[in-house]
């Protein structure tokens, strides 16, 4: 056989092997996430996890023989872009539902467009308490700050016994909601909130605001921030020699990146988590191993929640088919979906209540908190 003949045979074989799912018309779902810009790394985590989930689902036969295809759009973390993407996705007849976006602000800007067009908007991470209730087509699976805020307040006031608490929050929809729920709950528990300061999304310099907060002598500092800023705040706090304060932050801090950037400065930091890479549950281990094999990196909470969003969507498509309305009805019925971040059961407002765990960083590792 000539080389060319061999190539033809090989090509034919490859085509054949792809047939079981490749032959049918794919089902398109959309992903709106920040692939560039300030939040690019979170968007890329979304993309990776969703690619992985879809790859596995397609290898297992797709949706009744039809493969799933993901149409990704870059929202740049900008609410305007997210709204433009929503226009694009909803007017594309092939797309049956959407996953995204990352920030609550972007989700809420796109929300009316999905609602008007009648397409499911399933956000892995929007935790603003007004997001999911805002439209019958919007779903959030990370839990809201209405749940996590009081949880962290209890941690600070009851478990750690702190009475003078300062708050340094990121000035966006999520940060404001996170701060508000925490402050309200902490005051309700009898603690005094002695200072509240904010910072902007791209800020890297916290020395000024930390110096100011230090001046009011709080015994605890609560930092609603992403892990990048959280690590920088901790680094700069250490550099300023401010050690007589206990620092806490919501589960957004829970990432290997926090340990990597924060180094020794994050030891003693308290946070919460819904996802542990070391969780022995088989589905968690399958995800962690698969993710590590494919991307040479340990998945963080954002990757895990996006993976759950993708699998929840795939399971819903299996049950509901490709009608946009049927998908919404089926998704809203979700009561016992178990993902790597725990059980997903939608409330009547299409958000979920998560089980959080108290974590503290000891010797550069996240560990369960024991008093």
């Amino acid at each position: 056989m000539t080389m060319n003949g061999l190539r033809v045979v090989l090509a034919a074989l490859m085509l054949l092997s792809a047939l079981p799912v490749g032959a049918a018309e794919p089902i398109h779902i959309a992903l709106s996430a920040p692939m560039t810009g300030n939040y690019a790394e979170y968007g890329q985590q979304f993309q990776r996890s969703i690619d992985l989930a879809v790859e596995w689902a397609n290898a297992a036969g797709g949706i009744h023989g039809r493969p799933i295809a993901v149409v990704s759009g870059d929202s740049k973390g900008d609410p305007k872009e997210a709204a433009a993407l929503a226009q694009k996705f909803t007017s594309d007849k092939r797309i049956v539902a959407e996953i995204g976006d990352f920030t609550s602000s972007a989700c809420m800007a796109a929300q009316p467009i999905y609602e008007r067009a009648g397409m499911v908007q399933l956000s892995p991470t929007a935790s603003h308490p007004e997001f999911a209730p805002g439209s019958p087509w919007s779903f959030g699976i990370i839990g809201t700050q209405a749940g996590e805020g009081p949880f962290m307040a209890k941690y600070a006031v009851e478990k750690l016994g702190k009475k003078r608490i300062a708050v340094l929050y990121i000035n966006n929809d999520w940060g404001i909601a996170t701060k508000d729920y925490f402050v309200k709950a902490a005051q309700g528990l009898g603690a005094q909130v002695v200072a509240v300061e904010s910072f902007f999304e791209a800020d890297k310099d916290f020395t000024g605001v930390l110096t100011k907060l230090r001046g009011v002598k709080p015994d605890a500092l609560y930092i609603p921030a992403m892990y990048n800023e959280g690590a920088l705040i901790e680094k700069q706090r250490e550099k300023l020699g401010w050690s007589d304060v206990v620092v806490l932050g919501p589960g957004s801090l829970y990432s290997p990146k926090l340990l990597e950037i924060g180094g020794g400065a994050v030891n003693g930091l308290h946070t919460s988590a819904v996802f542990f890479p070391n969780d022995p549950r088989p589905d968690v281990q399958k995800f962690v191993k698969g993710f590590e094999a494919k991307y040479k990196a340990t998945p963080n909470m954002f990757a895990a929640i996006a993976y759950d969003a993708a699998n929840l969507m795939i399971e819903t498509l299996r049950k509901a088919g490709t009608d946009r309305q049927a998908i919404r009805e089926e998704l809203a019925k979700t009561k016992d979906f178990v993902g790597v971040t725990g059980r997903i059961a939608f409330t009547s407002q299409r958000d979920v209540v998560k089980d959080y765990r108290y974590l503290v960083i000891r010797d550069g590792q996240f560990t369960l908190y024991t008093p």
Partner: protein
Amino acid sequence: MLVPQLINGLTQGSLYALVAVGFVIIFGTLNLVTFAHGEVYMVAAFVGYFALAVYHLPWPLALLAGMVAGAVLGMATEKLAFRPMRSAGHMPPLLITIGLSVILKDLAVIVWGAENRAVPSIYQQTIQVAGVHVSVLQLVILALACALVGVLRLLLHRTRMGRAMRATAQDHEAAYAMGVNINRVFSVAFALASALGGAAGVLVGIYYNTVYATMGSTAGLKGFAACIFGGLTSIPGAILGGLIIGVVENLTVQFMASGYRDVVAFLVMVAVLIVRPQGLLGKTLRSI
């Protein structure tokens, strides 16, 4: 809390100043603005990161590596964007540097990824002076910034090349007529400016323990603002401009709120420019 805030502000301001001085050197000699300066700073910061975190070199070597990388990239910018466009007026080179800045930034995102990279810490300790906590690293950065500016001053005022640069800054044609190799002067101006920008990039990486692909944009903007604020062609002006911006920002954080830092900093700049359109130490005669 006033003294620590002043030190915070001076440290931050000295880093702005290093970037601003780069703009002054380039504008002073070529009478042109480069928008790729922030990205030169970013690339140098990454070089510093690799030297420190991957090759575990001591920080002075990392600083040097970043400065050399900055200088090389700066000279390349000059060759690519300015030299072929010498007679084309102001707009084409400006556009090329904008393009270059976008290309460098996006390439950095593609090659190095969008995430923050952790730069190892140095000089973690604080010392207590008269009851005030002072970070040793802040003092080191302040000292280094002063040293770099001192060396620059020596280069400009004590060497033949420095004299050639100052002559070119005053009058391109006259300097050329007197036998100054203008191309070399421009190349050296870019190298010096970019080495300083590179030093700022590496130091910022060390100071905040992080480098990332999009870090050049804000730095470029703040540096350029400090340069105009200081008088566009005055090195002492740019330094003063950078320091004032840094201090005003931190005092705003202390006495108002963190969110107002840029608002107040730019309001102060606008207010000064209304009274003194030529900037803090600007002159009508061009020089550096």
